[in-house]
């Protein structure tokens, strides 16, 4: 699948998940049955355009309720998306991931950062965000969806900014220190996105952490044919998430963008469904 096709799928996913266009003018949220279902990616349900529910927000609302309710429904949906697609959800369906990718395409700054000291340890931060901000803090503090409240830049971009700017949500929105903090987080993530490929997905996203754990078991996966691999390293150089697909084809960091598949001169990498018979491709000698 080409880069362009994936881009169009991402654009379609963004539009479909936020197709309540009237909401962007009226400031009124969609309240129909679509919001009984969680979308697979990070898309704030307080976005005036949102047609579905945010899985991270929904999970925290159960955990921060008193008495605590185990979010079977949300966990089931996340497990379903994860078992089918793994982090292909991030690569194809997540609106906030798409926004970061668009910013990374900006021609400035010219020098993009691929790797830096501290990149690897920082990747583990998203697991801490999942455990602490999405699970532990909502469990400990009633009525506090800590991730949404203190960190989520998607909520600020998709929900906070439009509602505050429209100021038509039927509320006098008290914009204060907290909003300033969240705006700062959002601006930092957006600015970093121009330099680093999907920084929020790499370092902070709790959904990326969950789907990353599912990557090894997911139905849609990388299917390397190692007998074709010449070890040239073209796949690792092409990977914007700094994965080496020849060594860890189903790494928790792989968002299934397919750039490595396109870069491989010997067609040793394929994305497909587990158990599917490998399609006959050109032999390494033919490909070169």
């Amino acid at each position, binding site marked *: 699948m080409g880069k362009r096709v994936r881009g169009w799928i991402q654009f379609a996913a963004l539009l479909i998940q936020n197709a309540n266009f009237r909401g962007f003018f009226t400031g009124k*949220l*969609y*309240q129909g*049955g679509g*919001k*009984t*279902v*969680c979308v697979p990616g990070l898309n*704030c*349900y*307080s976005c005036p355009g*949102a047609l*579905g*529910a*945010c899985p991270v*927000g*929904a999970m925290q*609302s*159960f955990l921060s309720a008193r008495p605590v*309710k185990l*979010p*079977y*429904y*949300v*966990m*089931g*949906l996340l*497990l*379903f998306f*994860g*078992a*089918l697609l793994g982090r292909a959800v991030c690569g194809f369906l997540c609106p906030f991931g798409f926004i970061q990718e668009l910013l990374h395409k900006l021609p400035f700054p010219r020098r993009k950062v691929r790797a830096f000291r501290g990149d690897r340890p920082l990747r583990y931060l998203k697991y801490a965000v999942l455990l602490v901000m999405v699970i532990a803090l909502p469990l400990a503090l009633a009525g*506090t*969806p800590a991730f*949404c*409240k203190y960190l*989520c830049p998607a*909520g*600020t971009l998709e*929900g*906070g900014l439009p*509602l*505050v700017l429209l100021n038509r*949500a039927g*509320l006098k*929105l*008290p*914009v*204060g220190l*907290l*909003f300033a*903090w*969240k*705006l700062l987080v959002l601006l930092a993530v957006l600015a970093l996105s121009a330099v680093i490929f999907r920084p929020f997905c790499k370092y902070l996203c709790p959904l990326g952490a969950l789907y990353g754990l*599912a990557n090894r*078991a*997911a*139905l849609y996966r990388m299917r390397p044919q190692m007998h074709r691999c010449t070890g040239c390293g073209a796949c690792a150089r092409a990977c914007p998430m700094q994965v080496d697909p020849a060594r860890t084809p189903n790494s928790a960091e792989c968002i299934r963008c397919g750039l490595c598949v396109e870069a491989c001169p010997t067609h040793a990498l394929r994305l497909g469904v*587990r*158990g599917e018979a490998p399609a006959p491709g050109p032999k390494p000698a033919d490909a070169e």
Partner: protein
Amino acid sequence: MKKLLTPLLLLLAAALVCAGLALGQHAQVLAKAARVCLECIGVG
């Protein structure tokens, strides 16, 4: 065993979704998602 992992996870997912539906959790998701979540947008 590896081949069974994905179907087992999908079955578990279906069981969890069914349990959630039986407890009316989809309605609670709707109730939360249909109102402006002040915490989520950074003003609550």
